């Protein structure tokens, strides 16, 4: 079962090690992890996606909550959240397919943020599945390099 865990914590050195250490100690492979500051000074928010047994993850949630620097932990159900991922994609844009590529970019939530010679860098935003399927769309044109962030998520409402 896939879990999206959101953690609000103090923005202090070592907090990343403490949090990720709890996962690795129990043999969890973190599928994605993203972290950044919040609008509240001194506080960060983690979004961690893991796949695992519900009971073990409930235990993990409690262990995370025990960390002194952790203020709150939520284990979100997929349907109750809005989530986004971001990807950068470098594709070949040779003259013969530029028009087609441009059309494709404008039909989805993507943008060209750099064009250097025959290489365009696109940015894509969407939920995890959207980003995956958009990347697939561009595979045909030849992806030179790509990178994606982990998922970030907030509860609806």
């Amino acid at each position, binding site marked *: 079962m896939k879990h999206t865990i959101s953690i609000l914590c103090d923005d202090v050195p070592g907090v990343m090690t403490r949090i990720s*250490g709890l996962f690795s100690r129990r043999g969890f492979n973190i599928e994605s992890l993203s972290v950044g500051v919040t609008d509240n000074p001194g506080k960060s928010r983690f979004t961690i996606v893991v796949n695992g047994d519900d009971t073990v993850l*409930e235990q993990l949630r409690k262990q995370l909550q025990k960390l*002194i620097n952790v203020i709150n932990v939520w284990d979100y159900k997929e349907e109750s959240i809005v989530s986004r991922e971001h990807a950068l994609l470098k594709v070949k844009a040779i003259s013969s397919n530029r028009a087609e590529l441009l059309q494709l970019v404008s039909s989805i939530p993507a943008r060209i943020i750099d064009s250097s010679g025959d290489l365009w860098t696109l940015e894509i935003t969407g939920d995890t599945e959207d980003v995956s399927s958009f990347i697939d769309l561009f595979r045909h044109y030849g992806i030179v390099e790509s990178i994606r962030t982990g998922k970030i998520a907030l509860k609806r409402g």
Partner: protein
Amino acid sequence: MKKGRTYGAKALIKTLEKLGVEVIFGYPGGANLPIYEALASSSIKHVLARHEQGASHMADGYARATGKVGVCLATSGPGATNLVTGIATAYMDSVPMLAITGQVPRSNIGTDAFQEVDTTGITIPITKHNLLVQEVKEIPSRIEEAFHIASTGRKGPVLIDIPKDVLFQEFNLPDIKEIVLEGYNPNSEGHPGQIKRAVKTLEHAKKPLIIAGGGIIASESFDVLRQFAEKANIPLTHTFMGKTALADNHPLNLGMCGYHGKVVSNQAIDQADVILALGARFSNRHTINLDTYPGHRKIIHVDIDPAEIGKNVETLLPIVGDLKQILTRLNDLIKPCKHPDWISHLKDIDSRALLPVVPENELTQIGTMRIMQEYLDNPLFVTDVGRHQMFAAHEIKLPSGRHFLSSGGLGTMGFSFPAAVGAAVGMPDRQIVVIAGDGSFVMNCQEIITATEEKLNIICFIMNDSKLGMIAQLQDEFYKSSFDISDLGSFVDFPKMAESMGAQGHRVVTSADLRELMQDKDLYKGVHIVDCVIGKGGEHAYPMVRGNSILDIVEEGGVK
């Protein structure tokens, strides 16, 4: 120095004084010398251990004996890593401890400087919390927070790492505001609805059972536990860490459960209809195998740490909070009950237990423990880890209270002697008695020097069977290999070792020798190392679980 200004190390010591710290167990080195400079003009006593591991066990023993926070101090690098075993020991048994370590100057951090290790990185998994102090002005508040965290909620060790240049920095000593830790709010009261439901469940139980864990000792809930058990007439079994939760001779106390538990205790767990677990964490030393652990659905689990509830066993009723407060509520609400059939059934099982046979003249571990108790007045026992530890858990009969200190969770060999030093420093009026094996004693025997220097009253009985007893037993029971790794030889002269370090050494070979020694009034003053030459090297510690479930338990020689 200008008025109102101070430097880091001085602020550290001032804060510790303000928090009521009376003693620090430590060892000097380049990176913590500024702290020693500040200690020179302080009311805080410093006890010089002879190894940093010793210092950490001393702080642990002090904390377990007194209930206060034990403080230890080491320098950076190897000093800090030597504390690690002691910190992990305290972590596993939830002992309040503050470990202070020196760190290389900030400009050197991350350069693999001389005596540099990532102390906070190393100790993250074995501390309740830790941090590297980055700025001198943080010192007072971080120390106060550390103290607060170590001694509240589920207690545990906290480590503060301070770079040497920060210890030397000057600053204006601030007034500390109230401690605010947004992510740390231990709940102590317990949910009133759950408490009421627990009372109802217990009142309807036909065969209720209390499992008392180390939480009773940590929260000092001795009196209210006894009152509650008596009022509700519920028999009690305890985990290893729960020894002395209730007096050993109390009629409702069945004795220890688990891997080396008593048959009656493990049977009671199997047959009970409602189990009230109090500050016990259902460790694998207690449950053996969760798949075969009696599958009660009616477990009422009370613990200060919400993460312990449901971690290992399914719980019908979770109650998170301080045991003393919750037991008081339970005791107020419950109607007096009687369970005569259930209790007499358990007494009947217990009456069929095979009792270990102790020869009259030969010195055995059990015999030694029985004899020594006859002569001791209100002793505080500290055991090491091994076969003698299990014999001690069964044979040493104690009232409830802080009278039995032992490394339960981590099973740290070498714990006993330094922990006894800490206990003796904290409780100077108590007779401290160590029970160690010849293997475990050697692991920190250098602390005899500290004990002698501090003029403590410690009697240490070494159960000398020339073997690593528990290893011998495990090899006998579970391995067929002819590679006997348990043999330690008998060439170490423990009395001479003691004398070389300023203590008194004794050797007893028969029970008559031991009785004679125990009658000597001089034994109860100063540091005495008693080499008890155990004739029969191969006494196995029974009962023990030999199978896959707590019911697969064997007693001396025979399966029942």
